[in-house]
């Protein structure tokens, strides 16, 4: 029931609810979860990930507020039919912020620009496998 590619790592510095939120965002953005598709209930996801249900509730609440998930009473929680696009300004800012963080991490460990770019490619490949690789 848990969508493939949704994992939590309690050792990660990112709080577990945030890992779930980001994981869901990634699955929606990559098309692994289609608009209107059901997502696991809080109970099921908490059981599968063995996390506190309150943690899942928190992640889902954020996603509902952001318009990514929609709750249908009595039916469950679904990916929104129309996924809100991220405003251009916010998108640019998020990218720039993330890039700065990554660049500073790379500089800190003394990585070259090429090395950093290769690591970035590898990370892309892990998070959003190219569509060609998937079965139609």
């Amino acid at each position, binding site marked *: 029931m848990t969508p493939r590619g949704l994992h939590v790592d*309690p*050792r990660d510095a990112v709080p577990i609810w945030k890992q779930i939120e980001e994981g869901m965002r990634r699955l929606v953005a990559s098309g692994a979860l289609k608009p209107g598709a059901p997502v696991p209930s809080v109970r099921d996801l908490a059981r599968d990930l*063995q996390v506190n249900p309150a943690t899942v509730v928190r992640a889902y609440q954020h996603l509902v507020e952001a318009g990514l998930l929609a709750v249908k009473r009595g039916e469950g929680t679904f990916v929104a039919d129309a996924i809100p696009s991220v405003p251009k300004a916010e998108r640019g800012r998020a990218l720039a912020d993330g890039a700065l963080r990554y660049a500073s991490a790379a500089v800190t460990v003394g990585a070259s620009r090429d090395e950093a770019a290769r690591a970035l490619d590898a990370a892309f490949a892990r998070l959003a496998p190219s569509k060609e690789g998937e079965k139609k």
Partner: protein
Amino acid sequence: MTDAATTTPAVRVDGLTVRYGRTIALDAVSLDVPTGSVFALLGRNGSGKSSLVRCLLGQQKPEAGRLELLGSEPWGKRSRLMERVGVVPEEPDAPREMTPRQLGAFCAHLYPSWEAKGYDARLSRFGVPPATPFGRLSKGQKGLTQLSLALAASPELLLLDDPTLGLDPVARHAFFDEIVTELADRGTTVILTTHDLAGVERIADRVGILKDGRLLLCEETERLKSRFRSIRYRSEVTEGRTEFGNELDEMDPLRAKVRGWGIESVVAGYSDERFNRFAARDGITDAEASPLSLEEVFLAVAGEEKGAAR
């Protein structure tokens, strides 16, 4: 979720002190457990965990301080409170000759809110043979039977005393599965003492660490993990393995070790800004901060002689 701040905590402990002869078992311990939360009480053997549990169960009269469990003082009200509290003891304590089925039938008479169906369903989900005498069950089956008994009474509060001790990974997984389901379905408050830090790390909202009868810290798991980091770096000042300077002070270092390649330290007051300031200092190179698991935090706080964690 809604008005957690305004509801009464499930447990309220204030200045609780317990003494056995001249030994102080609990030294002015104060903590709250919010209703519906999962509280993990951690500590080494002899840290005072069992004394606190005994006070909560009304088996130990505190020498000083106040203790409220579901709104009333447990001492003297044990039998009435226990209708509302499910307990899974550290040592399985059911009569050896009774089978899980007989235990269920027995307990059904004791608890007004007994759910016989839920009890049978859990036993079969756990794969516990219902007709085998309790004494002949495996350690894992005993633990899961006790959990089934505790949950069938629909408790408002579940008290688990090192419940996964000695359970194999499969039984442990089943155990936590059931706790998570119970939390999702009924919002039961859970208090557990444990040495299984990896197991509770994902589930506990709050963590308290006891050492020598004192509560070293008690806070949200998320906050705790966000402020602890392991920091590794090289410092030109410490090349000669001499005393290291005060470069980490702003991040509240618990301990620092000079290693061959540099310095390794655990800090209790990490933030990104503080770390960046530190890493930019003259003479500091190769600075790296990595998050700690709950187990590593516990070791850093309770494992050292100098157990200060402000």
